[in-house]
C-alpha cells in the first residue's frame, strides 16, 4: 500500500482490470458442462417402490410455468442415493426404513380405498390421500406417523430439487460467479423492505407490523 488512501497507482490499474481477472478466474475454475451420465443404478428402491417414488416426487414438485418437475431434475435418483448415503454415514438405516415404510403404507391405503396401488391410482385419488398427511397439524391422530413420513419425504424432494440445476434456476439463486464490483444491497430490494417497514407486511411466515421510525 503506497499512499494514505491505501491504494497505489498500480492498485488502481489492477482494480480497473478486475473484470478481466474475474473472467479469467471463472474460466480457469469453471466446471465443464454437466453431461447426462450412464443410467442410474438404484441402491435402495425396488421396482414397485420406484414407481411410487417417481409419482410422489412429481406430486410434491410438479412442472409449472417456472420450471420442470422433480423427476426431470433427477430427484428420485437423488433420494435413492441419499438413503444409501445416510445408511453409510449414520451407521443405521432409520431414514430408509421410514421412507420405505411410508411408501408401503401409501400402496396399502390406496389399495384399500381405490383397489389400485398408489402409482396406479388417479391423480385425484393420490391427492385425496396426500391431503390427509401433507399438513402435519391437521392430520388425524391415526395418520400422524404417515404425516411425519410425508414431511421427511417432502424434505428429501425439496433438497434434491433445489440443489439441481433446474431447481437453482427456479428459486432463482443468481450467484456463484465472479462479480467485478460489489455494490451492496440493490436499491430496488431496499425500497421494497423500506416500504414494508413503513406499511407492514402480510407474510407467509406471519404478519410484520409497521416499525416505529
Amino acid at each position, binding site marked *: 500500500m503506497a499512499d494514505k488512501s491505501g491504494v497505489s497507482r498500480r492498485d488502481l490499474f489492477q482494480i480497473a482490470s*478486475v473484470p478481466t481477472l474475474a473472467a479469467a478466474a471463472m474460466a480457469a475454475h469453471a466446471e465443464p458442462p454437466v453431461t447426462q451420465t450412464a443410467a442410474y443404478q438404484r441402491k435402495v428402491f425396488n421396482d414397485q417402490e420406484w414407481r411410487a417414488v417417481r409419482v410422489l416426487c412429481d406430486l410434491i*414438485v*410438479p412442472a409449472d410455468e417456472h420450471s420442470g418437475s422433480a423427476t426431470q431434475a433427477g430427484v428420485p435418483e437423488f433420494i435413492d442415493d441419499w438413503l444409501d448415503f445416510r445408511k453409510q454415514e449414520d451407521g443405521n438405516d432409520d431414514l430408509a426404513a421410514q421412507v420405505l415404510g411410508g411408501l408401503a403404507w401409501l400402496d396399502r391405503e390406496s389399495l384399500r380405498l381405490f383397489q389400485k396401488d398408489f402409482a396406479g391410482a388417479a391423480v385425484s385419488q393420490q391427492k385425496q390421500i396426500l391431503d390427509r398427511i401433507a399438513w402435519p397439524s391437521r392430520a388425524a391422530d391415526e395418520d400422524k406417523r404417515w404425516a411425519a413420513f410425508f414431511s421427511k419425504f417432502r424434505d428429501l424432494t425439496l433438497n434434491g430439487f433445489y*440443489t439441481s440445476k433446474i431447481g437453482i434456476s427456479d*428459486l432463482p439463486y443468481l450467484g456463484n460467479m465472479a462479480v467485478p464490483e460489489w455494490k451492496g444491497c440493490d436499491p430496488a430490494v431496499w425500497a421494497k423492505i423500506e416500504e414494508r417497514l413503513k406499511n407492514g407486511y402480510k407474510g407467509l411466515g406471519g404478519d410484520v407490523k409497521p416499525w416505529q421510525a
Partner: protein
Amino acid sequence: MVAMAQVRATPKTYDVVVVGSGAGGGVAAHVLSLAGAKVCMLEAGGWYDGTKQSAMFKWPYNAPHRGAGTKEKPFGYFDATLLGGWQVPGEPYTNAGGSDWRWWRARMLGGRTNHYGRISLRMGPYDFKPYSRDGKGFDWPITYEDLAPYYDKAEELIGVFGTHEGLENTPDGKFLPAPAPRGYERLVKMACDKLKIPCIPSRLAILTRPIHGRPACHYCAQCGRACGVNANFNSPGVHIFPAMKTGNLDVRTDAMVRAVVTGPDGLARGVSYIDKKTRNEITVSAKIVVLAASCCETARILLNSKSSQFPNGVANSSGQVGRYLMDTVGADVGGYLPILEDLPPRNEDGVGGMHMYMPWWNYGEQKAGKMPFARGYHIEFGGGRGMPNPGDFGGSEEILGGGYGVELKRQLRRAYGAFVGFAGRGEMIPNADSYCDLDPDKVDQWGIPVLRFHFKWSQDEILQAKHMQDTFKEIITTAGGKYFTGGSAENNWGISRGGEIIHEVGAVRMGSDPQTSALNQYCQAWDCKNVFVTDAAPFVSNADKNPTLTISALGWRTSEYIAEQVKKRNLAA
C-alpha cells in the same frame, strides 16, 4: 516440494526449523526467511495450493450427494480441507471419562487457514489483563500496546477489511475498505439499533483492493473452498510461497513431527519426524526450533520430547504443558423474517462470510457487576439468497404449515432468502479441569503417544450461552420474525461441545513466572531457550476475538525477537 531424502547422509543444519504451516508456522517462516535465516518447514499433511486446487464456482450437482458433509469432509465435498476433520485416519485421540472434546485437524499445507472464516478481530486492552479486571483467569505477560505494532504488520500483509469505529475494547486496525452490507444485514442492523446493540461492518481477511500482487475479491462467497485467485488470506499463498522465493525456505510435507531433539547442554538440536511416505524417522538439525503445529499438537510434541534432562518433556519444568486448554463458547438460533420474503431476485453472495457483525457491548454492565457471567461474546450472522445446499430446505412445514404441488413451489420461491441465522462466539475462562495429557496406553500409526482430553465448561460460559439465546431471540422478534432453537436449560442453552468451534488455544501458556508458565513473554521456553512457540498454544486467555489474527501478530513479534537475539548473539545461528 523440496525432497531431502538424503538428509541423514549429508546432514544440513538449518538456522530454524518450523513445525507446522498454518497461520503460526507461516508467519514465522515468512518473517525469518525474509530476514535471511535458512528455514526448514515441516508439515504433517500434503502439499496444497488453493490457486490450483480450489473448488470455486462448482455447483452442488457437480458433487456426490450434492456436496453434503461426510465423515471424511465434515464441511462438505467442496471444503478446502483435503485431509482432516474431527478424525484423522490412523491418528486417534481420547477423552477422559465425562469429557467430550472434539479436535479438528487439517493435515495439509497451510492447515486451517485454507478454509477458515477469515474473521480478523484484534484483542483489546482488557483482553490482555482479564484477571486484573474481574479477578478470574490470568493476565498475559504483555499488553495491547506491546502487540499493536504487530497487529498493524499482520493486517498490512494479509489484508483485512473493516471500518474505524472507536468502540470500547474493540481496537480498529489497518483496514481495507469494507464491502457494503447485504439487504438482510441492513435490516438486522435496524433491529439491533432499536435494541442498542452495535452492528458494524465485519473485519475479514479478504481483499477488497489488490495488494502485494494479489487481486481483489470477486465476491463469489466461497472462501471456505479456498480462493482460486489468492484474494483471501491463506498461509501458502500469503506466507509460504513468497518466502520460498527468497531461496531461504525449504518445505517438507508428510513430515509428522514426534519430538524436539535436545543435546547434553540442555538446548534443542532440531526435531525428529516420521516421513509418512516411507515411515522412516528423520532428524532435522536446526539451531532454533519453532513449534506451530496447532495448540494441542504443539503440546503433544513437547510432552513427547522426554529425555533424562527433560523427564516431563521440553518446556514442561513447571508442569504447565497441556494445562488451561480453552475453546470458544458457541450457541446459535435460527430466524425466519417474513419481511424478507418475495424480494426481487438478486445475487447476494458478497464475500465468503458476513459483511456485518456485533461486537460485545456490555463491558460497562459487567464492570458494574450487573451481569451474571464474566466475559463477552460477539454475534455472527448469515442468511439471504445463498447457494442452495442439501438440508437447506428441510422443515419447510414449520413456516408454511405443509403442502405440496405448484402452490408449494410458489411459496418456497417467496420464502427463499428470508432465513437468517445467528451465532454467538464468546470467551471461555481457563479452568483447571480443562487440559490435555498423554494417553497412558494409546499410540497413533506412527508410534507416537496420543493426547487424552479433559474438558469442562463453567457457569460463566453456560450463562453466557443463555444470554446469547435470549439476545438472538430478541433480535429476531424485533425484526418481526419467528425463531428456532434447540437451546434450553436442560442442554445448557445449546452450548457447543469443547473444541467444536475450532478455536482451541492455551496448553503451552506464556507468563512472567517460570513456575506457572511454560514460555516467557516472547513465547520462548523458560527451560530450553532455543525453543519457541508461534501458534495459539501460548495464549493465556481466549477473548471472543477469533484467534487467527492474534496468532499472526504474536508469531510475528516472536519471530522478530528471534532475529534480534541472533543478531545480539544471545542465540546461535
